């Protein structure tokens, strides 16, 4: 095509475009005139009508917060409830000079800078005649003093508002969690309309996980206001729907006994019912006072909690990842029996160390002089490292990992709480993916004794112990037992079975016997602390563990810069009881506690005694479900 034609085409095109543009502009002008006409109709023609409506505009819809569902333990003890909390509120329109008022209030109540800052922000964002919160959680004396001097304090009101409280406090802080004031991030994940009247929302734990159940639905009230916006009377009310009351599987008395048995040491205890997956106790010690967060924790108090070397905010039971140590030996033993690597009767002479044939390096046993002749059962009972080095070397990592995975290592248990970690189940693929390195044979050996890369949460340890107790039967652990269906009846959740661990019955027998031997035989690692003075009414099957690690382990970036002062081992014990009819499976971790047999086993014994009413335990006057 010639340039001339192109040019002509272009010009024609442009002309057509200009015509269309003019048309569009005309149309826009017409539409704007229409809108202008409409607006003049509203603003000029009907101005008087709308002014009257505006001045008489007396109806307003206000949200009413629903009352939050309460949380109880399996026996009906209250774990989280609502009670009236007195708070100081100021109606700015009636208060006169705010600075003067705040000055006078200082004589009655302690006001922090944060309180005043929040108050001033609230003043800027309020509606007319809307009272603004100044201080929450007043004690009775302050309430009384202010009430007496009310005539000196215009615009000041004491309001009773429902506030969350946690009667059992720090012992449940990590399970139940807490609610706190709603912030921007919270609003991003919920429907803001549902929270229009609410001030608090679940932040961690059960409070967060079951927020949808607990919160309920807001109601609305239609109110009449006067020309200044002050509410004169209520016209109609759509009542809010209260949140659902829920019951946990936790046994509060057992939880308290477990917390007490740690006697101020840092650690975690998880107790499960192996028959139905119910979590009977879930302790992370030390805890903290959850009510601090409800009332709005001060920056100073929060940084104190964060910098506390005992790390009370850290949920050791779910978020803490520790090398499981010798507690995995029963699983490795079962894998070896199941794979046909060894038999229950095969004996070996366990020296004080093990060498991979052709290699110099010595892999030491925890017992310098070794354990002498051991078979599978005795190797588990005395916790021979060398026996398991030998097994692991023959078996190889690839045949070991599937069994450990079937017990749930390296995967989240999927419990209904927040913050759970998955731990690490190392394998060839895992190492290639995370370290871009090949697997070394020596790493197989230390994996077999639960060291090296392997990490596990106390919850996972309790879970695999329950699986051992159930001879492979695996039921999903959970914290929610039932919920109130609104008619005062409790709707119970059914146990959810998971894929069982498959092994021949005689292999389960071998492992089971070895765990009893570890506790009740004279050579067992828990003989000194349990077997020598056993409970009279039941026997315990269990395994001690001692995990050598600094702080929390290599995968834990939580706070490297404050490694614990002493670099002691973690003490571990996992076990179930009664050995022949397991009702409870327990995992105990005492951070930097030292030897598992000496330190962790007695703690587990106390927890089991408390639950099974053993002679050494405190008596629980609580009816059991079964």
């Amino acid at each position, binding site marked *: 095509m010639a340039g001339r034609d192109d040019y002509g*085409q*272009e010009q024609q*095109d*442009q002309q*057509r*475009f*200009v015509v*269309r*543009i003019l048309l*569009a*502009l005309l149309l*826009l*002008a017409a*539409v*704007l005139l229409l*809108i*202008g006409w*409409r*607006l*003049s109709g*509203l*603003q*000029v023609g*009907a*101005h008087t*009508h*709308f*002014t009257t*409506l*505006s*001045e008489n*505009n007396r109806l*307003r*819809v206000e949200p009413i917060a629903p009352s939050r569902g309460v949380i109880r333990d399996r026996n009906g003890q209250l774990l989280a409830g609502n009670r009236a909390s007195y708070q100081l509120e100021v109606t700015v329109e009636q208060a006169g000079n705010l600075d003067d008022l705040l000055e006078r209030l200082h004589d009655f109540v302690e006001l922090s800078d944060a309180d005043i800052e929040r108050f001033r922000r609230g003043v*800027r*964002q*309020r*509606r*007319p005649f809307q009272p603004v919160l100044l201080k929450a959680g007043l004690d009775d004396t302050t309430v009384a003093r202010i009430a007496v001097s009310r005539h000196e304090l215009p615009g000041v009101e004491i309001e009773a508002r429902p506030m969350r409280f946690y009667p059992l406090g720090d012992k449940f802080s990590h399970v139940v969690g807490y609610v706190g004031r709603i912030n921007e991030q919270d609003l*991003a994940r919920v*429907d*803001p309309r549902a929270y229009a009247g609410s001030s608090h929302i679940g932040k961690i734990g059960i409070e967060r996980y079951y927020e949808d159940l607990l919160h309920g639905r807001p109601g*609305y009230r*239609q109110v009449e*206001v006067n020309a200044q*916006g002050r509410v004169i009377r209520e016209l109609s009310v759509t009542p809010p729907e209260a949140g659902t009351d829920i019951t946990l599987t936790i046994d509060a008395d057992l939880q308290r006994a477990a917390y007490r048995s740690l006697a101020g040491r840092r650690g975690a205890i998880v107790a499960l019912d192996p028959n139905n997956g119910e979590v009977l106790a879930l302790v992370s010690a030390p805890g903290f006072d959850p009510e601090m967060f409800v009332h709005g924790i001060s920056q100073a108090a929060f940084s104190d909690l964060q910098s506390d070397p005992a790390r009370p905010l850290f949920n050791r039971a779910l978020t803490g990842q520790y090398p499981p140590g010798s507690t995995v030996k029963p699983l490795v033993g079962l894998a070896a029996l199941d794979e046909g690597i060894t038999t229950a009767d095969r004996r070996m002479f366990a020296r004080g160390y093990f060498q991979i044939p052709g290699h110099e390096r010595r892999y030491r046993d925890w017992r310098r002089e070794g354990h002498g002749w051991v078979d599978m059962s005795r190797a588990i009972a005395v916790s021979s490292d060398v026996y398991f080095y030998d097994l692991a070397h023959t078996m190889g990592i690839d045949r070991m990992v599937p069994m450990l995975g079937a017990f749930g290592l390296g995967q989240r248990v999927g419990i209904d709480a927040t913050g759970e970690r998955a731990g690490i189940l190392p394998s060839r693929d895992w190492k290639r993916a995370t370290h871009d390195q090949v697997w070394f044979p020596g790493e197989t050996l230390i994996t077999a004794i639960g060291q090296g890369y392997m990490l596990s949460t106390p919850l996972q340890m309790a879970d695999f112990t329950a699986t051992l107790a159930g001879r492979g039967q695996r039921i999903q652990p959970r914290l929610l037992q039932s919920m109130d269906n609104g008619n005062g009846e409790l709707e119970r959740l059914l146990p959810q079975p998971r894929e069982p661990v498959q092994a021949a019955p005689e292999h389960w027998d071998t492992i089971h016997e070895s765990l009893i031997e570890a506790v009740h035989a004279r050579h067992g690692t828990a003989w000194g602390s349990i077997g020598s003075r056993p409970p009279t009414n039941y026997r315990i099957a269990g395994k001690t563990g001692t995990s050598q690690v600094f702080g929390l382990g290599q995968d834990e970036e939580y706070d490297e810069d404050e490694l614990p002062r002493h670099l002691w081992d973690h003490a571990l014990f996992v076990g179930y009881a009664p050995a022949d009819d397991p009702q409870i499976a327990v995992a105990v971790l005492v951070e930097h506690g030292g030897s598992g047999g000496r330190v962790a086993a007695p703690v587990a014994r106390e927890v089991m005694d408390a639950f099974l009413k053993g002679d050494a335990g405190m008596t629980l006057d609580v009816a059991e479900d079964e």
Partner: protein
Amino acid sequence: MISVTGREMPLGQWVLGRLRLDGVLLVLIGVLLLVGLAVLFSASGESMIALERQTMRIGLGVAAMVLAAQIPVRTLRSLAPWLFVAGVALLLAVMVAGEVGKGARRWLDLGFMRFQPSEIMKLAVPMMVAWYLSTRNDRPRFRDLLVTVPLILVPVFLIMRQPDLGTAMLVGAAGFLVVFLAGLSWRWFVGLGLAAAAAIPALWLQMHDYQRQRVLTLFNPESDPLGTGYHIIQSKIAIGSGGLYGKGWLNGTQSHLDFLPERSTDFIFAVYAEEFGFIGVALLLLLYFAIVARGLWISALAQDRFARLLGGSLALTFAVYMVVNIAMVTGLLPVVGVPLPLVSYGGTSLVTLMVAFGILMSIASQKRLVNR
């Protein structure tokens, strides 16, 4: 005055030229943004937080506009098909993996940020249609419609499914405006109009309950004074009680006494109308008209068909935006959730609009380069 390549010009003009910005458009937009901040301050109950946030968003928008103005029209043209394909792919991704916010699936989480792919389509659809029509020699014919109509309706349908009726409508408008500006015969517009009318029953069946409710409420707001109708009733009271001169800045009772819902976002026009009256409203409409007219003027002087069609469509889509919002707030159209452009509180649509103005400025400076 400074001297560049031997010619004298004021410093401001030199800077604008170097940044490829259009002074007239810049001033008009600037005035509108400032008016918007003033109204927002009042509508948000004199909240400094809202003001700061919106100022930050405006800063982001201006930066995006300046950046967009640097992209030569040629580059935009060659980018158009890719942007369109990427946009459709993202819309499909949202359907599969989108974040659900307030009951609608619109957001895509990229890990570092969340964004709405439907916003991209507000630019990608007119770019794509303009690109296609610029490859044709003559005014669009029937077979061009066979290409352009699916190009427009596929994204529109995907956005409607999210569901986001307001954005779907704007994207559709942007696409069809290109076809209109390209000179499609009137007969086809009549035909398309009839087809659209015939599609209304099908559309009605596709709608969610809350969308139907909004349409029904339009015809009789008093039927539902506490639900969706409450918005329109209170909005009309706000506008009407503003009168000729308005109640004065920060003195609107409807907004300050908390009667008017969504007053910082979709219904901010009612706050403006209450406080500045009919005279203020008329001035605001004039300002909008001036911005649209300037955009069309720039497009009319553009050097090629693609630039012309894209620029014209962007300017007119801005007009549609404004008209739909105001018509909605004054009770002429159903509540479809379209913000008042450059004034309503909120980030995503503001940035998209500013990018559109950046593209118009790029078109404007393309002209300047060739003419001199």
